[in-house]
């Protein structure tokens, strides 16, 4: 069966998960872009010990931390880091995974064996442990986070790309392109890739959620974004000791992570329903 072009699909398929997910992700993206406009104070510099540990209320909607900084403003700026890590690492993962999977599926032979073995190896190593090792070598910071998360989770898109290529390879139009004299790379980019893009976008969207969670975990462990910069994970890490006495320090970053990751997962699910008519799950 060929992929049905998007135009043929009834409008608004994908249903509620697409809309709720899209809404949550849209909100996160808006907050990240508009951070300087909607934040009330500078997230790092505006410390005021006179305002320390004020509970959520009219003046500070999410409360303040031990240095008297506004949690709301820190969460707003934290969205930038989370989304940068999510999007950036998934672009890297997709580039690596798709180029390996596409060539492995198309060429086959020893290259396919090699890529499959490498993919299995990557899947066998817990990616967070791998990322921890890379962070330990590169040191903390945003660019090392992107490397650590962007180089360790490409096996999913690689597998998907390879499987899709294998199922498309025998299609008449791929053979026709070869017969017409198209080169291998041209076939991969003009004939194969546009027809497997749907599932890859879904995988990348779902991967963003995972990457944001990994960033939070690494920052929580002190290897990601270091204080005083406001990453949701590093905010949780700082709040750990005061979870009983100053609970809003951990609740609000936790809720921000939860909603963003939930949004990305719902969006990925919804996109799958639209872009991948072969999946029969969750069709209403």
């Amino acid at each position: 069966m060929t992929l049905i072009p998007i135009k043929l699909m009834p409008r608004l398929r994908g249903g509620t998960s697409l809309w709720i997910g899209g809404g949550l992700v849209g909100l996160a993206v808006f907050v990240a872009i508009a951070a300087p406009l909607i934040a009330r104070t500078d997230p790092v510099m505006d410390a005021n010990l006179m305002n320390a540990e004020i509970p959520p209320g009219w003046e500070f909607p999410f409360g303040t931390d031990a240095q008297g900084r506004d949690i709301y403003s820190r969460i707003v700026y934290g969205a930038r880091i989370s989304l940068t890590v999510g999007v950036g690492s998934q672009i890297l993962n997709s580039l690596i995974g798709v180029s390996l999977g596409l060539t492995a599926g198309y060429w086959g032979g020893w290259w396919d064996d090699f890529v499959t073995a490498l993919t299995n190896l990557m899947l066998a190593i817990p990616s967070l442990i791998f990322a921890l090792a890379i962070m330990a070598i590169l040191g903390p910071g945003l660019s090392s986070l992107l490397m650590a998360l962007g180089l360790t989770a490409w096996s999913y898109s690689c597998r998907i790309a390879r499987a899709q290529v294998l199922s498309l390879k025998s299609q008449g139009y791929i053979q026709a392109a070869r017969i017409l004299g198209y080169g291998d790379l041209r076939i991969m980019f003009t004939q194969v890739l546009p027809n497997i893009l749907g599932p890859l976008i879904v995988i990348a969207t779902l991967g963003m959620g995972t990457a944001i969670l990994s960033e939070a975990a690494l920052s929580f462990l002190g290897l990601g974004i270091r204080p005083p910069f406001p990453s949701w994970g590093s905010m949780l890490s700082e709040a750990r000791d005061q979870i009983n006495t100053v609970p809003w320090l951990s609740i609000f970053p936790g809720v921000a992570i939860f909603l963003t990751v939930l949004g990305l997962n719902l969006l990925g699910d919804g996109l799958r329903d639209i872009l991948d008519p072969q999946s029969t799950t969750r069709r209403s």
Partner: protein
Amino acid sequence: MAEPLLALDDLAVHFKVGSALAGGVHTLKAVDGVTLDVKPGECLGLVGESGCGKSTLALAIMGLIPPTRGHIALDGRDLAQRGRLETARTVQMIFQDPYASLNPRQTVRRTLADPLRIHGVTDRAEVEARVVDIMAKVGLRPEHADRYPHEFSGGQRQRIGIARALILKPKLVICDEPVSALDVSIRAQIINLLLELKDELGLAYIMISHDLGVVEHVSDRVAVMYLGRIVEQGGWQEIFENPRHPYTRALIAAIPDPFHRAAVSARAKARGEVPSALDPPPGCHFHPRCPLKADICVSQDPPLEPVAAGHRAACHFRDRIG
């Protein structure tokens, strides 16, 4: 005699299947010693049941599968020495399934124009002119150019497939079951279109089909294939009126024939199923299904020998049939 456009000399394509660890490696002889030629402007019908190696033979001629043995000469030169682009400009293919053979994400214009650009036609006006010209030749209107494949019916899609095969002005077109996936009402249209284009452009065809009825209408000559080998070949009239191989007789007997035109009776029917190409019977591959089977058929492989001018059959009893 005209120089053949395509000459196959003892062509064989074998595949290794299975694994050394699980059950051992077997050799699948998809095409096993085929000698054929196609002259310019001629239509050769290639007939056989599914799995007899017709499509593998086609892919080998297109240069997509390297031959295990033998030679393919295209337009007087060995295929192995021709470049990919040069081969593409000489031989093209029309596919069976008009739904799977067009890229769903490309407009008709892109499907037709990209090959021209790959082959060095860079002038935009010339590309456009050739696209419009070929679309008119296959019966598509210019406004169809910006539509996607899903906006067309099966017959129209097959016309796009034909246009794509002809855009590079090839001399030989391999038609792999060009109408078997189409509605019966459309088939005659497409067959007639193919015949018109053949005369207009001086094309040679290899018409691959499992249906002798289709081949009968279009072919100058017919080759019958069974389990990787040619069992009979000759002019279509010879083949239909005087078949000398029991398998050909069985195929002709299988054509629906309300007027009893064919000179073959129901006794000619073949028994049973096609054996596995992985483990073909010894001697004549057809003997387990053959009504004329004798001891010699099991022990000796019958060569493809002439029975009349331009008519050859691979059967020990070729002179007694008929």
